C-alpha cells in the first residue's frame, strides 16, 4: 500500500495564490470556484473547479494556471475536473474575497440597491451602465468623490 505524500491543506494554500486573470485582486479560492481537492494514494492531485458565467473566457486560463502553479511546486500529476452543480453564484465569494475586492476598488456584490463607493464609502452613488468590462461587472460612479468604479454584480 502506497500512501500519498502530498498534503491536501498545502495544496489548498497553493491554490489560494492562483489569481483570477480578470479580477487579479481575487484568488480562485476567494472567488469560490474551487470545489474540491483530492490527493490519490499515487499522489495524483485532482482539483475540481466550477465556471462562473457559462461563457467566461477566463475558465481555460484558470485551469492552465492551476496546473502550472501545482507543477511548479513539484506536483507532476494534476487532473482538473469541471463541475456545473451546484451552479456558481456571487454568494460563493468569501468574506475575505469581498474585502479584497473593495480594497482593489471594485464594489463587492450586494443585495441592496444602494452600493457604497469603494473609495470614500459614500452611499451617494449612481449606476452608469448595467454592463461593464466583463460579464460580472457593472459601471458605477460616486456622486461625492466623483470617482467612477466597477461593481461586481449579484448573480
Amino acid at each position, binding site marked *: 500500500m502506497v500512501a500519498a505524500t502530498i498534503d491536501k491543506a498545502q495544496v489548498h494554500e497553493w491554490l489560494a495564490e492562483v489569481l483570477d486573470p480578470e479580477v487579479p485582486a481575487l484568488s480562485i479560492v476567494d472567488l469560490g470556484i474551487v470545489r474540491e481537492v483530492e490527493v490519490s494514494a499515487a499522489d495524483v492531485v485532482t482539483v475540481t473547479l466550477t*465556471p462562473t*458565467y*457559462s*461563457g*467566461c*473566457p477566463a475558465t481555460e486560463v484558470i485551469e492552465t494556471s492551476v496546473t502550472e502553479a501545482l507543477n511548479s511546486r513539484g506536483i507532476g500529476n494534476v487532473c482538473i475536473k469541471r463541475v*456545473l*452543480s*451546484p*451552479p*456558481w*453564484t456571487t454568494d460563493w465569494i468569501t468574506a475575505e474575497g469581498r474585502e479584497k475586492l473593495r480594497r482593489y476598488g471594485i464594489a463587492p456584490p450586494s443585495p441592496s440597491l444602494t452600493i457604497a463607493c469603494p473609495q470614500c464609502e459614500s452611499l451617494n452613488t449612481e449606476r452608469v*451602465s*448595467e*454592463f*461593464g*468590462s466583463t*460579464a460580472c461587472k457593472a459601471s458605477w460612479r460616486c456622486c461625492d468623490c466623483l470617482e467612477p468604479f466597477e461593481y461586481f454584480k449579484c*448573480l
Partner: protein
Amino acid sequence: MKTDEALLAYTLRLADNALILSQRMVELVAAEPELEEELANANFALDFIGQARMLYTRAGELEGLGRSEDDLAFTRDEHEFRNLLLLEQPNGHFGDALVRQFLFEAFYVHLLDALTRCSDKGLSEIAARAIKEVKYHFRHNSLWLLRLGDGTELSHERVQQSLDDAWRYTGEMFVADEIDAVVQDQFDGPDLVEIQKLWRRDVENTVREATLKLPEDQWMASGGKQGQHSEHLGFLLAEMQYLQRSFPGATW
C-alpha cells in the same frame, strides 16, 4: 425512436439555438447604437457561446463518436443544424434584433426552468447554470421593448413592425415532435403546451405595457428543428465555419 438518440438530438437542438443566436449577436459587436448596449450585447453573446460549448460537449459525450464541441459547431452542414428559424433571421435594425431575442428568451427562460427538473443530469446542470444568465437577458430586453414601444411615434411604429414580422417564426417553438415527446416522457422533460401558456402570458404582458399590439394568429413557418432552414442559415454558416473549412483542424 430510441431514447438515447432522442436525447442526443434534443441536446443538439439546444446547442444549435445557442450558437446560431450568439453568431447573429456577434455580428452586432461594434455596431450597437450606444456603449451600454454594446457591452450588454457582447456579454449576452458570450453567455450563449458558453452555453453552446457546454451543450455541444454534452452532445459529443452522448454521441460517443469522439466529436468535440468544435467538430459539432464547425463541420456540420446546414441541413444538420436544428436551430429554430427565428434565430437565424438576419439582424435587421435594432428593433428587429431586439424582438427576436425577446420572443426567444421569453420561451427559453421557461424551457430552461423545466429542464432543471429533467432526469438527465447533464442537461439539468447546464440548464441550472444557463437560466441565471438568461433571466437577466430577458429583463434587459423587456426594458428595451417598453422603451421602444412606448417611446416616440416612429420607434413605436417600427418595433410594432418588427413584432409583426417575427411572429410567424414563434409557432415552431411549441410544435412538439417525436424528439420533444421522448424527452418529455422518458426524461421528465419540458411540456411545450405548458411552456406556450407561460410564454404567451409573459409576452402579452410586456407587449401590452409597451403599448404594442400582439399580432393575430396566423400561418407559422416551421422546419428549423428538422433541418429545413431559410436561405439565411447557409450564409451565416459560410462565414462562421470559414476557418475550419479552409484549414481543417487549425488551432492556435
